[in-house]
């Protein structure tokens, strides 16, 4: 059997049939150099897989753009989810925070007092004195 370099790579990629695997391991049992090569290749592949994934800038590799689409989809989903969470937080905060838009009774009193002063029954009894209050419960 010639040096089975391609079989080793194919094996590591999971592309060999049962009979090809038996044939490869039969060779490795008698060829120390091939066994060492397979161990080294396995180590290299493991090291490469442990590296972090880097996102390519768009357009750097035009052919790769198609592969980036799923990542964009994920990012869009995450952005949407984050926006929804922020909206919910704002809504809850807005509802539990008292509204600052309000009008005081004093302002209404002044309008009532002004109109009441045109009433035929206008007199001291019609005038509102909001601060003049002595409560005797």
């Amino acid at each position, binding site marked *: 059997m010639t040096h089975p370099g391609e079989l080793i790579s194919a094996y590591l990629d999971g592309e060999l049939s049962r009979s090809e695997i038996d044939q490869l391991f039969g060779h490795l049992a008698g060829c120390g150099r091939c066994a060492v090569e397979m161990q080294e290749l396995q180590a290299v592949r493991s090291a490469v897989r442990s590296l972090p994934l880097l996102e390519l800038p768009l357009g750097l590799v035009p052919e790769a753009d198609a592969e980036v689409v799923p990542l964009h989809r994920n990012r869009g989903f995450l952005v949407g989810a984050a926006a929804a969470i922020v909206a919910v937080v*704002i*809504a809850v905060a*807005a*509802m539990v*925070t008292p*509204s*600052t*838009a*309000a*009008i*005081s*009774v*004093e*302002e*209404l*009193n*002044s*309008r*009532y*007092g*002004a*109109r*009441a*002063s*045109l*009433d*035929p*029954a*206008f*007199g*001291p*009894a*019609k*005038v*509102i*004195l*909001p*601060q*003049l*209050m*002595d*409560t*005797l*419960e």
Partner: protein
Amino acid sequence: MRLRIGAIAAALIVIPASAVSAADLDQLLDESREASYTAEQVITCSTPDGVRSGVVEIEQSGGSLHLSGEVEVVSGNGGWESVQGDSVVTSASVKAAETHIDPVYTVDDGSAHPFLDRKAGLYRLYVGDVLRGELIVDGGTGAMLSVVTYNEDGTVYCERRFIEFDPTPPVPSQSSLSGTGAIEPTDSVSTLPENLGDFQRLDIYQDDEGLVFAYYSDGFFSFAVFETPVVVTLEGATTVTFDRGAYVRSFTPGQAIYVWQTGAGGMAMIGDLPPDMHEAVLAALPAPSEPGLLQRLWRSLFG
């Protein structure tokens, strides 16, 4: 009008009150408005929330009143202004439409009733057989020296009694009241009813902020109903529950104030009507309700 007022005033002075035919409430009120005097008045009101009382100094002339208490109030001829120290706290100016109120009250023959050592007449106001008010009218000036208002069950609601009275016309007020910027009555359609029991809607107003208010009167008592797109705040109030829901209520000497929320915003009712009339009036207005989720959110975010 002045001739008629003068004739009535003369009749009150010269002719024994008991000989006067059934009095005209409008004439009595007109005389009182025209009177000029200085006085000190005690106000005591027995409200469902306790007694409200106060003492106030009054100067009236030219249809305008100047009252001095903890806060000074100047009111008359469509203006209202409260002043504390040198600062105007609140002010408003309105105009009124020409309206006529169908008479609700009957007034009995006046009877002589000296008051503060002055010749005066006592007049009783009735709605049907129910006594609603007693007016003691000064024979010299037409000023109302005492006004007692009654609940339907005959108990006293408010008593406003002069404890000092000087018929000398006061120095004209230096009030800054003016007709500039006065809110004019509108003809716009409103959901506020034209009649609330014996009360007639006389005027309705709307300002730039969307505040709508209507003025109601039965010829003696009066109140205003306010509709606002925002919440109305009322400090030192209590919550009272009627059949249609919960209201926030407060009484000042002589006035009742109700505030409540509706789906469209806030509402308020302010007036001098006795407490037994309150629930019937409120029942004819939009009921209290909590605003919906979206409304609360909208108001919170955008006011």
